[in-house]
């Protein structure tokens, strides 16, 4: 009697009793999953593994060396990493406010008839291939952005970033010194990150609860009052998540940067000045003539870039998923 009483207080182990076809299904699905897991993990591990021959060959100087001169077998990541970060930060500095304004416009200011069209336009902007933005950046934007760069160098050179080592006030100013810079590359890359960030932000803003919006309106708030009190606090994590995602994209952008910049390997803080280098442009430019060891070095550089974008994307996912609006949304 005691035995049966205690058996009823424990949960039963239920045999799923799957039919044969289901067992086949589950097994094959699982094997596909494992296969993809192994494949994808192998790619990541392979890239990481390349760090070993690189460190073996070049030592830790790989991270402090700025020059990349394959003929003399001098390779180093320092300048390249700095350039990558500079271009990405410029893209973010220009892109974040524009993306925020665009998202606010579509979600709060646009008339209802126009709204769906605007949402489609944002998606359209994301769909345009990056090489097209590279063309736009190089041929259309650069001549005009050059003038903006010169303006900044003339009037804001008390900020070290804006200095250029030529005289911007000269009548015949050296135009070529203001081209092919991190600044212009950053502007082109911003075009790619704006739709990404704007789409996420807009999606978050659209979910701001109607009850709170009405409460603010009923108190006599203006449109900006509603945005400041309800929409922005609600969307805070989505804004951060969208921006982090944009940063990840900007770090990895290759083609637009490759088309615009002129490679220069030095630790350079003057973003308006000609010449910079990013990891992806480096790989695109140097893979052909790379020796075996240098190829490993390129792969190691790629791995560092991957680690950066992965880190940034993971942080972004945390922000978007933890926000009130994040449940069920995908980045």
């Amino acid at each position, binding site marked *: 009697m005691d035995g049966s009483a205690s058996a009823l207080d424990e949960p039963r182990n239920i045999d799923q009793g799957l039919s044969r076809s289901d067992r086949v299904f589950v097994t094959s699905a699982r094997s596909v999953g494992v296969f993809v897991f192994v494949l994808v993990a192998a790619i990541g591990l392979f890239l990481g593994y390349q760090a070993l021959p690189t460190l073996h060959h070049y030592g830790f100087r790989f991270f402090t060396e700025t020059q990349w001169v394959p003929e003399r077998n001098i390779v180093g990541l320092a300048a390249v990493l700095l350039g990558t970060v500079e271009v990405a930060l410029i893209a973010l500095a220009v892109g974040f406010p524009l993306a925020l304004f*665009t998202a606010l416009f579509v979600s709060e200011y646009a008339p209802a008839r126009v709204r769906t069209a605007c949402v489609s336009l944002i998606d359209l902007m994301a769909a345009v291939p990056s090489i097209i933005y590279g063309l736009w950046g190089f041929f259309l934007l650069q001549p005009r952005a050059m*003038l903006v760069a010169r303006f900044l160098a003339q009037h804001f050179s008390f900020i070290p970033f804006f200095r250029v080592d030529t005289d911007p006030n000269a009548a015949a100013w050296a135009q070529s010194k203001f081209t092919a810079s991190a600044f212009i590359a950053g502007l082109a890359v911003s075009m790619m990150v704006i739709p990404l960030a704007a789409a996420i932000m807009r999606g978050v803003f659209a979910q701001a609860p109607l009850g709170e919006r009405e409460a603010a309106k009923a108190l006599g708030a203006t449109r900006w009052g509603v945005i400041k009190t309800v929409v922005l606090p609600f969307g805070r994590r989505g804004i951060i998540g969208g921006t982090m995602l944009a940063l990840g994209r900007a770090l990895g952008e290759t083609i637009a940067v490759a088309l615009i910049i002129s490679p220069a390997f030095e630790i350079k803080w003057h973003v308006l000045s000609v010449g910079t280098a990013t990891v992806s442009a480096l790989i695109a430019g140097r893979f052909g003539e790379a020796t075996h060891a240098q190829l490993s070095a390129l*792969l190691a550089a790629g791995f560092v870039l991957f680690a950066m974008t992965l880190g940034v994307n993971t942080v972004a996912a945390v922000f978007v998923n933890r926000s009130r609006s994040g449940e069920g949304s995908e980045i």
Partner: protein
Amino acid sequence: MTVVDLDRPRPVSTRTFDDYAALGGAAVGSLATVWLLYSRVFATQGALGFIVCWYVGFIALYAAVSAFTQPRVTVVDRAISAVVHGGAAVVGIALATTIGYVFVKGWPALHHLNFYTQDMGGVRPTAPLTQGGVRHAVVGSAIEVGLAVVMAMPLGVATAVYMAEVGGRLSNAVRTVIEAMTALPDILAGLFVYTVLIIGLHWERTGLAASIALAVTMLPVVARSAEVVLKVVPSGLREASLALGASKWQTTTGVVLPTARSGLATSLIIGIARITGETAPLLIVSGASTFFNTNPTHDPMNSLPLYIFTAVRSGETNFVARGYGAAAFLVLLVLGLFALTRVLARGRLESK
């Protein structure tokens, strides 16, 4: 006394005459002031600078004018409204000029029929636009994208089915790894294929190698978006099917996949649009050939993005024009695929 029809809705506006007057007055006032300062006093150059100055002046004047008659909240609201509209306008103009520029510069090449029917085999880059074309690049793109889709799509959907329908702790690990791989910069996919296949296994730089690089880029994206589509299928449908006695396999193939069909189609088309425009991996893995090649396993194969890249960097006027023509073609292709997804989505909504 005006007769008001009480049975018709009355127009209700949240804007007052003061709103419009302040807006118009500030715009014109700023224009006049900036024009005066710009051209007469400071003599600076550049249309872009003029517009920027005008806009800043406009916002300042708009806020100042409002401050005379409106409470602070209204002034702030108006100023911010002007800034937000301006930001959105900048983005809209940038997008419009991007697409417009490519078409304008590509038109000289686009309107020749030979552009679509010929390739560059035997045609020098400097040859006039009545010779040569992008046929090889278009076909090359089609083959490479097609092969990539054949490799990545079934694998991606199967993985999504595994993650969404079978589940379990291992599937969480798979999902984590897949999400991590969406962060992989596309050029690294190319470098990986280059190192393993071309250097390691001594393959040639063929269309197949390029397809593999594209498939590596496409796989995580397809798996992720397909999983989302499958998860959106209401669980009530699965439960109803199981309650009728169907097996998991039958439920998946008979209920879940058909319900998710248009969502999967949309993911597929978006994936195709994305990799059609991929250039970075092709730079490394593909060779920019000039002749027509339909064999992906032998000899290099050109593709639209690669053609554009080599053309616009060449510096030869006619070749550059062809590059722009190819770019315009690529944009049309991507826009067309994009419009297709919108049509599919609307069809899905209407059939509900």
